[in-house]
């Protein structure tokens, strides 16, 4: 009676909300097993109440409020929305030979000041494709590249990453300068000249100049201070790194290079994140002590280069066991299939990572890394209502999201791929496929 909106079966949902997403004021999802990834842990027969885009409450045997749209999720599993900690969503449509890759900045003119958020396209076909796989938040990163035919290459400092949401609203960039991406190790050496030591020097020089600029900004503006190698745009961007509000996200794999990073971060009192981390397990204790988080591809077990000789399937489990915050990329860095972090997580579990830690790695952990955990990453009152309803274990590859909710909005479970699929699912051959919708 009070639940005036019909109780919608999950089966019905996908069909009903295809055409126009409904932004309900109040939604109650009932009878689910909810992995909150928050202090409430996992709750059986739980009700989640969403009001005005935020979680209002979650718990067993809660009563749906008057006027709520009720979704019966009996037998279903609910997780927070997935959060991919790296990739180029909204910065690429087709990778090879089809328009620019907006994640790439070549040349020396801009380094730390380069901000991918200004290139972000929330209408990219990749957004819907990944949204329906359960990805609700993502870090999008600048990407370094080696020299083109004119000899232009990227700088050791790639620039600023941003967090975005994959919702259907207009406000899609959550946080600019969520990380400052730098390249050390083998990748850095290619950009710096030859030696990886030069890559480190370039980073140090930038940090030192940024510190000096901060101390002498007024003199500099009056023309009474030395010139800098880096532009003012870049030095301004680095201030947030020096004050710890923007973490360094270092692409680095070899253990010795990670040791160098740990020392650097300590010396400058920076917040740091390792991305790659093939050999990070060798330094698990040191990383934990330095509170350096690691983004890794748990299935990348081959010595892809001499920086990866100790790549291991058990890296995730080893790091987690000593308290290092971890999150997952997939082994190909496939932005197009960002949702494959569930496969990364499942394989990490198979190699010893506790299940809840695996779920945390694809939801809350990236939110913590990039400073948005006050708003997203777990199902907790007051946070943005991002969640995924799964028919069964979300880490199993036969599982798929039945419904995704972002910022309290029940999103359309369609993408360009599902439209193609539906066109060719039809077996009517009386007219060419172009006539089928």
């Amino acid at each position: 009676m009070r639940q005036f909106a019909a109780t919608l079966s999950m089966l019905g949902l996908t069909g009903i909300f295809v055409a126009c997403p409904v932004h309900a004021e109040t939604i109650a999802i009932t009878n689910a097993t909810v992995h909150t990834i928050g202090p409430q842990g996992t709750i059986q027969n739980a009700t989640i109440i969403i009001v005005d885009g935020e979680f209002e409450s979650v718990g067993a045997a809660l009563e749906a409020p008057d006027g709520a749209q009720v979704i019966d999720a009996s037998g279903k599993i609910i997780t927070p929305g997935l959060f991919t900690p790296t990739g180029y969503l909204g910065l690429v449509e087709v990778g090879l030979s089809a328009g620019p890759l907006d994640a790439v900045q070549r040349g020396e003119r801009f380094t730390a000041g380069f901000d991918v958020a200004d290139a972000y396209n929330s209408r990219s076909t990749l957004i819907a494709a990944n949204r329906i796989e359960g990805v609700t938040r993502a870090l999008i990163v600048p990407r370094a590249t080696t020299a083109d035919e004119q000899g232009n290459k990227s700088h050791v400092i790639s620039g600023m990453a941003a967090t975005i949401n994959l919702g259907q609203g207009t406000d899609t960039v959550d946080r600019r300068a969520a990380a400052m991406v730098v390249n050390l190790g083998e990748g850095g050496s290619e950009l710096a000249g030859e030696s990886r030591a030069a890559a480190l020097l370039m980073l140090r020089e930038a940090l030192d100049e940024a510190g000096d600029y901060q101390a002498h900004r007024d003199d500099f503006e009056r023309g009474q201070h030395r010139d800098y190698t880096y532009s003012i745009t870049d030095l301004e961007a680095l201030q947030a790194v020096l004050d710890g509000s923007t973490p360094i996200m270092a692409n680095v794999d070899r253990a010795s290079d990670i040791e160098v990073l740990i020392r650097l971060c300590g010396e400058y009192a920076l917040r740091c994140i390792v991305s790659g981390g093939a050999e990070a397990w060798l330094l698990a204790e040191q990383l934990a002590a330095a509170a350096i988080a690691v983004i890794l591809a748990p299935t990348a077990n081959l010595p892809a280069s001499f920086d990866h000789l100790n790549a291991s399937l058990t890296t995730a489990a080893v790091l987690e066991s000593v308290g290092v915050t971890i999150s997952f990329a997939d082994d190909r860095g496939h932005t197009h299939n960002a949702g494959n972090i569930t496969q990364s997580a499942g394989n990490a579990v198979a190699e010893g990572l506790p299940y809840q830690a695996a779920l945390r790695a694809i939801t809350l952990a990236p939110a913590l890394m990039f400073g948005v955990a006050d708003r997203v990453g777990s199902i907790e009152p007051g946070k943005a209502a991002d969640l995924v309803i799964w028919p069964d274990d979300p880490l199993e590859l036969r599982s798929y999201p039945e419904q995704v909710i972002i910022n309290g909005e029940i999103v359309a479970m369609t993408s360009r791929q599902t439209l193609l699929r539906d066109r060719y699912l039809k077996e009517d051959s009386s007219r060419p496929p172009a006539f089928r919708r």
Partner: protein
Amino acid sequence: MRRLFLALATTLLLLSACGANKDATDTPFPGRYQPLTGEATIIAGATLLTGTGDRLENADLLISDGKIIAIGKGLSRDGVVVVDAAGKWLTPGIIDLHSHLGVYASPSTASHSDGNESTAPVTAEVWAEHSVWPHDPGFVTALAGGVTTLQILPGSANLIGGRGVTLKNVPGRDVQSMKFPGAPHGLKMACGENPKRVYGRQGVAPSTRMGNVAGYRSAWIAAADYRDKLAAAAKGQGEAPLRDLKLETLAGVLDGEILVHNHCYRGDEMSVMLDLADEFGYTIASFHHAVEAYKVADLLAESDTCAAMWADWWGFKMEAYDGIRENAALVDRAGACAIIHSDDSIGIQRLPQETAKVIGAAARAGINILPQQAIRWITSNPAKALGVDEYVGTLEEGKMADVVLWNGDPFSVYTRAERVYIDGALLYDRENPAMNPLTDFSLGTGVMPGGAE
């Protein structure tokens, strides 16, 4: 008399030349694979996915002398090793139709880049087996993923890239000791973006898709001419042409001895390639990277051409933009031969997981794919495409004992291959890592003895 003798000698010479020619295509670099010794073993009480479309519960499988001897319940256990497999699953060895292990080996240094002879658009004369580095650590990690047979192909820079080779995934000192006995050679062809990009930017043909097709046709015209001249010479009509490695390979395709494996993403291009094959009288064993196979599934079924697909790769280039996860399921639904391939040294370790992605996507689209059907996509169907289905790809009496015991449902993300047998020999045992193979490269390069694993 003397003339007669000469004529006879010429005939004999011709005959022997003909024989030598046959030998030249069949036996250079002969396979020297010797199965390792295995013990007669019953794997008892597992769930069997046979690769023939059947699922058997709580069944025993007896292997001995490298072969599958019997499948059933309550087989006699006298004198055989018994492996208790209750609650576990048993499948044929996984077969990857498309791998570059050994030709693009780890670590991927410039000196390991041996997969594309991208110096001319038609290089039918090169053989992938001459690039295979048997110490690629990827072979061992693929074995841990249950892969027992794999085809190593040249890359896709060229219209016709050269011969592929089918290997048993056994550690070998040289490629010859890995070659699958009796497997035909493959021929790698490539449609679409790659050849036209590689050569177009050098300012030579092909630079367009129409240039691609002209390139194939020119090559087949030369091959048909070579084949006809050889055949005529064998009948004493005219001189045999000088042996030509490139044309010898192409003629081998026209004679049906070498199987075409055609990298081709787009459905419309697959349709053109099928007509090209008709024009010159050969068949295409399989399309690879067939991202749009779902658009032409009926054509594939009619022509009995397999489509080898990734589960989910899409969008990394224009011809991959229309990739959908249900692809293999739609091909299978049309009655065509669906295959999940890897093309990747990490993906090859998890072909059942990739298959599981398709099962999930198909379910979302209302298509129910049973495990006993899905397993065919990575066992019997690739065996068929490779022309080795009389030997491997199913759990059937008399087949080579290439089998994988999984510690659970193979399509679960949590499942691992527990034991991998090749020709009845236990090559990989998850419980006994010290007994497993380790390539020369892995020895001593990591901080752990035998690498991190």
